[in-house]
């Protein structure tokens, strides 16, 4: 039986029993009312017998018409009362039949009594018999009246005892139903609450075991009520939890193994990183030292070379001044080549010194008009070689934050490079403009010159690196390396795109700069 059903029974039982009590009280009340009404009738019959007896005695004593008429009147009412009444109980009805029989006889004998007295007394013998008969009738009437009285009294007594019994039974029934009500409701309540308490106790115990981590524990689930269903659901849940826990444990173990392995890998990686960083630091230190040494060497070489070069240049100048006219043309050409060679070497030394200095210069931050700067460079190039047909397309308003001097060197190198490699074109076009790369401003110098193979793009900015086929162009191989160093010093980057015979484009950015 489900808890809901039990609770419903607990709720309905008192109502049902209370209704039963009410019904029994109602029935008893109806029966009492009926018995009381019938009891009144019986009492009236008893009084009627008494009245008739009194009137009979009066008539026997005085033979007055008043007694006779009163007797007849009373008898008429009594007759109606007796014959209009009937009882359900067999015993009562039997007694009523006795009363009726006595009453009928009383009526008969009283009539006989009246006839005997009031009838004609023709002879003396009749008078004697009449007197004797009256005495006999008086005795008979007395006996019959007594009999009727006894039967009516017994009936009244029966009615009274029945009334008492009905009331007593009603009381007993009420008490019985009340006791049943208390016992049944109490028992059902106790059993239900006890059942609930036991079931809840099992659930609580199961929960405690579960919370303590005992997933093997199962709750005893007898019956088919809600708590038993809950216990079974709990057991199912525990089973699933147990399986999930087993899976989880397995997964955790796997993860732990993996974690340990990962930690080991991380440790190894960290160790490797440390080694690499150490190596990088070492290499950096070594590199810095090497660079410093190289720069110092370059500077020293350049500086120390400048003296003998000046001597050679001086002597070439002296020879040309003092013995120029004594030299044939070939010697003059050789001397000129030697003299030009000293100047080129001087230029190379200047370039090397500048390049070397760039490693130490800290660029200033100022607003630089790159468009104006590009125009100046173009003008210088046109003036240097007026015979070249080159068209400059310089975007207006290009400006940037940076060191004006260094940016002038970088831009001169890039535009000069374009000028140089468009030398083979009848109509050279050099373009300077701005663009945007990865959300940052970028500038470019584009030409329609010889171009280059992208496979060699990474070699473009290496010092003293000359791409294959570049021998026909003059230069020291340090220009683009200088550009890269300047751009890097500004925190930017430089790169190039191009194809052989299709020109080249050099892009550069300046970190943190914005086009102005």
């Amino acid at each position, binding site marked *: 039986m489900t808890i809901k059903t039990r609770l419903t029974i607990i709720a309905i039982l008192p109502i049902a029993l209370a209704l039963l009590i009410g019904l029994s009280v109602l029935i008893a009340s109806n029966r009492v009312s009926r018995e009381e009404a019938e009891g009144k009738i019986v009492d009236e019959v008893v009084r009627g017998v008494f009245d008739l007896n009194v009137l009979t005695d009066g008539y026997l004593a005085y033979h007055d018409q008043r007694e006779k008429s009163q007797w007849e009147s009373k008898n008429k009412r009594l007759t109606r009362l007796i014959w209009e009444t009937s009882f359900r109980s067999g015993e009562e009805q039997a007694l009523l039949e006795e009363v009726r029989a006595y009453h009928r*006889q009383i009526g008969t004998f009283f009539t006989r009594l009246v006839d005997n007295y009031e009838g004609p007394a023709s002879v003396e013998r009749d008078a004697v*018999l009449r007197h004797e*008969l009256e005495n*006999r009738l008086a*005795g*008979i009437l007395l006996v019959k009246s*007594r009999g009727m009285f006894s039967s009516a*009294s017994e009936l009244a007594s029966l009615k009274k005892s029945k009334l008492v019994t009905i009331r007593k039974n009603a009381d007993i029934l009420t008490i019985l139903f009340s006791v049943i009500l208390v016992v049944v409701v109490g028992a059902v309540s106790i059993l239900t609450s*006890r059942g609930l308490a036991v079931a809840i106790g099992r659930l609580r115990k199961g929960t405690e075991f579960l919370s303590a981590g005992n997933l093997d524990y199962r709750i005893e689930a007898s019956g088919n009520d809600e708590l038993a269903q809950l216990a079974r659901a709990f057991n199912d849940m525990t089973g699933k939890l147990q399986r999930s826990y087993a899976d989880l444990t397995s997964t955790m173990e796997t993860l732990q193994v993996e974690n340990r392995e990962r930690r080991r890998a991380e440790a190894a990686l960290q160790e490797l990183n440390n080694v690499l960083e150490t190596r990088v630091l070492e290499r950096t230190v070594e590199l810095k030292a090497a660079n410093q040494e190289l720069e110092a060497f370059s500077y020293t070489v350049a500086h120390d070379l400048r003296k003998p070069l000046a001597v050679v240049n001086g002597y070439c100048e002296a020879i040309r001044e003092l013995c120029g006219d004594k030299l044939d043309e070939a010697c003059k050409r050789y001397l000129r080549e030697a003299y030009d060679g000293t100047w080129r070497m001087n230029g190379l030394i200047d370039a090397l010194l500048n390049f070397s200095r760039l490693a130490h210069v800290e660029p200033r931050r100022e607003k630089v008009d790159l468009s104006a700067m590009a125009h100046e460079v173009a003008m210088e190039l046109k003036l240097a070689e007026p015979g070249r047909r080159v068209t400059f397309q310089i975007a207006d308003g290009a400006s940037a934050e940076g060191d004006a001097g260094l940016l002038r060197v970088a831009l001169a190198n890039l535009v000069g490079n374009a000028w140089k490699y468009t030398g083979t074109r009848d109509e050279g076009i050099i373009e300077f403009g701005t663009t945007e790369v990865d959300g940052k401003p970028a500038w470019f110098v584009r030409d329609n010159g010889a171009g280059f193979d992208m496979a060699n793009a990474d070699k473009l900015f290496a010092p003293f690196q000359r791409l294959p086929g570049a021998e026909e162009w003059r230069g020291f191989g340090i220009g683009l390396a200088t550009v890269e160093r300047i751009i890097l010093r500004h925190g930017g980057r430089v790169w190039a795109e191009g194809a052989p015979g299709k020109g080249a484009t050099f892009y550069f950015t300046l970190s943190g700069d914005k086009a102005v």
Partner: protein
Amino acid sequence: MWRKPTFWAAISIFVILAVVIYQGLSRQRGIPSLPPERIRFAVAELIDSGPIYVALDRGFFREEGVTAQLIPSESGKDAFAAMAQGRADFATVADTPVMFAGFEGRKDKVVATICNSDKEIAIVARKDRGITDPKDLKGKRIGVYMKTNQEFFLDSFLLFQKINRSEVTAVDLKPEEMEEALIAGKVDAVSVWNPLKGVLENRLGNTATVFTAEGIYTWFWNVAATDNFIQKDPEAVQRVLRALVKGVDFIKKYPEASRAIIARFVHVDKKLIGKLWDTYDFDVSLDQALLISLDDQARWAIAKGLVRDRTIPNYLNYIYTKGLTGVDPDAMTIIR
């Protein structure tokens, strides 16, 4: 704790045992502890004596600690006489012998009425003697057991027919003589009790004519005891009365079985008893009507000169009321 059905089983067994023991003890208390009382009971072999036969047959006397020795009699008058002669402690007797005993100063007392009827006595006459109407009895020989209610009934019957007693010839016959006297024609009619009335009707067939007079005489069939016995052992009187009450209860509850028992004792066909059954009202009582009837008959006896004394005895002195009061107070309705 309330563990399983074991607890309830134990409670149930305890309750059942308690009830059984209580009932056993209660029943034990109901059994008289005294040794059985031996009584001699003179009983007229009439249907009216039914409660005594039933009590004897069903063992109600034994249950009450009484061993009853039955002394069969032809009439109440004979049974009452047997008691007067010291041959019986108890006797069945109608009102008339008691009335006469009052004039004789006997000390025997009525302890209860066990049956009453107003159709018990009838006059059976022979048509072949010219009797077809009650008035035809004038001048005829009528058998009657003198100094019994037969005589009182006959006298009353004649009175209601306005026939003087001197106009008929009353022949004193014992009950056992009645049947043959009428059959043999020694008398023209007889005043008889049941069941002889039925027996005569059967034997005479169409020749018989029966005159009844419902109500003119109410017969009280009583149990009387000797004053000596009552004085000596009033408790025994109550035991006898209890047995008779049980007998009456049995008759009311099992009329068919009761008729079979009574038929065996009175030597009459059960069917005949069945036909007469409604005539009888079995009840153990003592009513004022008995006293009235005794007084009425006493006046009759005096008027007819059947007794010498002209004073009606106080019949209260001939009725023992304490016995029945002790057994069933409601059944004792004599005014006191």
